[in-house]
């Protein structure tokens, strides 16, 4: 490769490194939704923070999937410290936060009321109006070739966009259903373990109690016999 070609190439890369860094950082904002599942140990509180722009809205949905009473405390507070929502020992909940102020919103799951049971918590964040416009346009620059039939293309594109957003919704519903199913399954598995344990305990208790009863009754009569003679 000739040096004459390399230099402008390198220079343009260097320039774009400087200038585009900030543009690209801003462009790659939050994906439409993200979900996390984590274990919350007993007596602990876990907090997560989400940066919000003004007039954006955040929907948060959480569920307790496993762990004793299947309940947890939950609260959301704004960047200035105001308590927006407060749930006390609920097993699932949905909240929508309208971002009136810009900043980091904090939401916490609190398991301090429990001393022995660890909770498995699933939560999902759905963000709206968070500068999504730049993201879809990014890849438009890199496509090759053109499409014929400009007028009809618009209609097809609209339909495709429609289908895409509906499929996105399907994915969200699927995630929620998966969380519900996981919770029911965990509940059933703990039922299974409990039935096994208490059946065996019951068996031992019955056998021991019957033996003890017989022994006690016999011992009562032994003593009386000794007293007589």
């Amino acid at each position, binding site marked *: 490769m000739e040096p004459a070609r390399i230099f402008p*190439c390198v220079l*343009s*890369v260097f*320039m*774009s*490194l400087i200038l*585009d*860094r900030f543009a*690209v*950082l801003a462009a*790659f*904002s*939050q*994906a439409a939704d*993200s979900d*996390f*599942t*984590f*274990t919350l140990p007993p007596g602990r509180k*876990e*907090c*997560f*923070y*989400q*940066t919000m722009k003004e007039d954006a809205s955040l929907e948060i949905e959480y569920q307790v999937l496993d762990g004793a009473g299947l309940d947890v405390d939950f609260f959301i507070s704004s960047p200035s410290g105001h308590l927006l929502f407060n749930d006390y020992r609920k097993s699932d909940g949905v909240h929508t936060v309208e971002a009136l102020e810009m900043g980091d919103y904090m939401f916490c799951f609190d398991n301090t009321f429990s001393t022995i049971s660890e909770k498995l918590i699933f939560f999902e964040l759905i963000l709206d109006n968070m500068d999504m416009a730049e993201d879809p346009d990014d*890849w438009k*620059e*890199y*496509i*090759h*070739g053109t*499409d014929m039939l400009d007028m009809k*293309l618009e209609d*097809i*594109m609209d339909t*495709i*966009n429609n*289908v*895409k957003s509906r*499929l996105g919704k*399907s*994915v969200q519903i*699927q995630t929620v259903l*998966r969380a519900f*199913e996981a919770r029911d*399954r965990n509940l*059933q*598995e703990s039922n*299974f373990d409990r*039935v096994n344990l208490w*059946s065996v305990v*019951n068996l031992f208790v*019955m056998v021991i109690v*019957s033996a003890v*009863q*017989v022994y006690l*009754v*016999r011992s009562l*009569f032994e003593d009386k*016999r000794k007293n007589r003679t």
Partner: protein
Amino acid sequence: IVIYHPQFTVSLLVAWIYPSGALYFHIGETEKKCFIEEIPDETMVIGKYRTQLWDKQTTSFLPSTPGLGMHVEIKDPDTKIILSRQYGSDGRFTFTSHTPGEHQICLHSNSTKMALFAGGKLRVHLDIQVGEHTNNYPEIAAKDKLTELQLRVRQLLDQVEQIQKEQNYQRFREERFRMTSESTNQRVLWWSIAQTFILIITGIWQMRHLKSFFEAKKLV
């Protein structure tokens, strides 16, 4: 190597490392934070994280923490470790699941010097993308030379494929759930019958034993 689009390369590089999510949490020095991802098989998962350390002098979080890394450990549903690696202060890890189930992603900092944390916390920005969200469409468009329409249709196909995979996995999970329920139900039934039987036998044995005992002692 022809760099037609320098912006393309840069944005690929930046998107590669910087998490596109703005969700963050605080982690202590020896603390380990674990996240569970329940995914079908042959699904790719990309995790990106960015760390910031609290600086006492400026009383704010520094944008980067040189020398501080995070250790990422990923376990598959059979609790076998499929990834266990150190990454820098900003990192990206990726894995593909080969068995469906609950995969566990654990992060903890590799810092051994207490001074580095200065009793504070580390802020970790984390983003985990699963399945079709991991596809890099600008790259695919360039590689396969797709028109806009073709790219859109490709996106739809990937989305539908992911939904289908998830549904198959859901069927498998529901079957396991049903087996557990039916097994529990059966055990409750058989145990109740067995318990009644044992109680009756024990009662008969006790009565007979005590009766023969009393007869032997000439009380009856």
